[in-house]
């Protein structure tokens, strides 16, 4: 495996981030006032706290997204080696996908995808 590409990407990322932040430290003017630390809400002070009971609908959406994102992460390494695995690899991945699609169908049927 040729790891040089990976190393180059890593170094570029680090250089860009540190370079950007460093340049900003050097040249940007700074100022401070009490309103800067407060939340922005169209110019009006906020009311109440945000630590309160949230709707469970938000959690459902987040969890479903997370599940399918992790599934995609698992699909990437399979996609890299798909040629070497031929049919048996395809069948195994299909099993994996089938289980997750069953989960999606269940969520759809139960109405988790609607916002109520």
């Amino acid at each position, binding site marked *: 495996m040729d790891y040089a590409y990976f190393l180059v990407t890593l170094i570029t990322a680090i250089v860009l981030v540190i370079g950007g932040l460093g340049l900003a430290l050097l040249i940007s003017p700074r100022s401070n006032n009490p309103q800067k630390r407060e939340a922005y*809400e169209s*110019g009006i*002070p906020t009311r109440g706290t945000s630590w309160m009971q949230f*709707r469970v609908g*938000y959690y459902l959406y987040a969890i479903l997204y997370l599940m399918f994102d992790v599934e995609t992460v698992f699909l990437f390494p399979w996609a890299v080696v798909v040629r070497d695995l031929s049919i048996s690899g395809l069948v195994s991945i299909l099993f994996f996908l089938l289980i997750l699609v069953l989960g999606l169908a269940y969520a759809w049927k139960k109405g988790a995808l609607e*916002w109520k």
Partner: protein
Amino acid sequence: MENIKELILAKVSDAVIEDKQYLTVTVKPEDLRTLAKMLRYDEGFDYLIQLTGVDYGDSLGVVYLLAKSEDMAVCIVIKTATADKENPTLPTVSDMWKAANWNEREVYDYFGVIFINHPDMRHLFLTERWKGYPLRKDYDAGRDVNPLDLKSYDMSDTTVSYVSEGDGIKKIEKNLFEEEDYVVNIGPQHPATHGVLHFRTALDGEIIKKIDANCGYIHRGVEKLCEGLTYPQSLHFTDRLDYLSAHIYRHGLCMCVEKAAGIEVPERAEVIRTIMDELQRIDSHLIAWSCMCQDMSALTAFIYGMRDREKILDIFEETGGGRLIQNYNVIGGVMADIHPNFVQRVKDFIPVMRKGLKEYHQLYTGNVIARERMIGVGVMSKETAIAYGVTGPAARASGVHCDLRKIAPYAAYDKVEFKEIIRMEGDSMARYMNRLDEIEESLHIIEQLIDNIPEGDFCAKTKAIIKLPEGEYFQRVEGGRGEWGVYILSKGDKTPYRMKFRSPCMTLVNAMDTISRGGKIADLITIGGSMDYIIPDIDR
């Protein structure tokens, strides 16, 4: 209307009935509710057009202008006054006409009159800490009484209501929002509020539980300023109220003064005014469409609408001298004759606009996302529209016949033929389609008039100083967003004693709470865009 007089005298024996521009009935505050109930429920006067507070010097009074929703040309005026200037109180009529809710808050703001049994007696335009009542004649407008305060205060969550108890009045506090409500400020600085309107929205996840609209962030005190200016001078403010219906509003005030002073406007000026009004209406609806689509994140629609609007602005600029604020109508006619290119330019514009309309429908109206976001969203029933006094394309989308150009025609509208666009669904899609269809009707009106502009003077000769005879004068015109009205109370001077502008957008925002409840925040943006209000018109 003759039998109305007998019916009123039968109910309220000491009512004073006069036959002025409209039938005017003056009653004492104790009999106001009896008379109002009779007119509202028995006689069918279910449209409250205007509610004006007046400081008569020795008393503070209110003037109500009512109309019937079946025939909006039939109007009646009720007047009442209370002589107590220390603690003035009057009974409320907000249970009979929901439109009175905000109007009475405005009278409280300006004059300090407390309305008994009003559910929400708070300041509407001025800040909670304002001292004094600006439109009273003895108000001290000095900056030391109400200095500029740059500190942001938290807004209070309670409101007061004064209820009658036995012989006296009790003040009770009510909660606007509960302790555990999650209240978000969809604030003054927001791209989708079409101006500086502040919605305090109580949310349950994405669902809206309640909206409390706060206006007054552009309250410039125009009505008080007009009391110190002559009539030609106060024309300049009408352009800046609803700046997208600038011609129409200025036309309305000019008509009011002309009718009162007995000035006859030449025909050429009437036709020019009508053509300019219709061009202004197309301009206004184009911006309404552009901004509504932009709020629903279709930026291309914004660019297309503004592109076509620039052609109208070119026409305005060549003749009137200004793009947005034209200062074109004056008392007696128009300020200058139309430019020699005017007729040709308008004739070239009409097919371009028609092509544009087809493009707009192709671009956005058939889009499945647009349809999902607009159909069935923000349904305003006919009863809600009438109760809140909504007019304009928004009310016509709910089935109310309120086009003043048809009902009470003025200028050259009785000489042209056009349809009144009525839809019955009352949702955002209906309001959206109404505006685009009204552009087509305006083009039709312009086509009928543009080749037949009569020759003659463009302005009647008027005196240098215009003094209106003593009395009260009303005028109603159809603006881009609904019915705009003027009320002038003149004591024979060259400046008005009281000038009031009836705002169509105030009714639209008043109705927002009712029609947005139960919807999502994204729907609030769609509904706001489809109702299309302009905030300086509300705040004046």
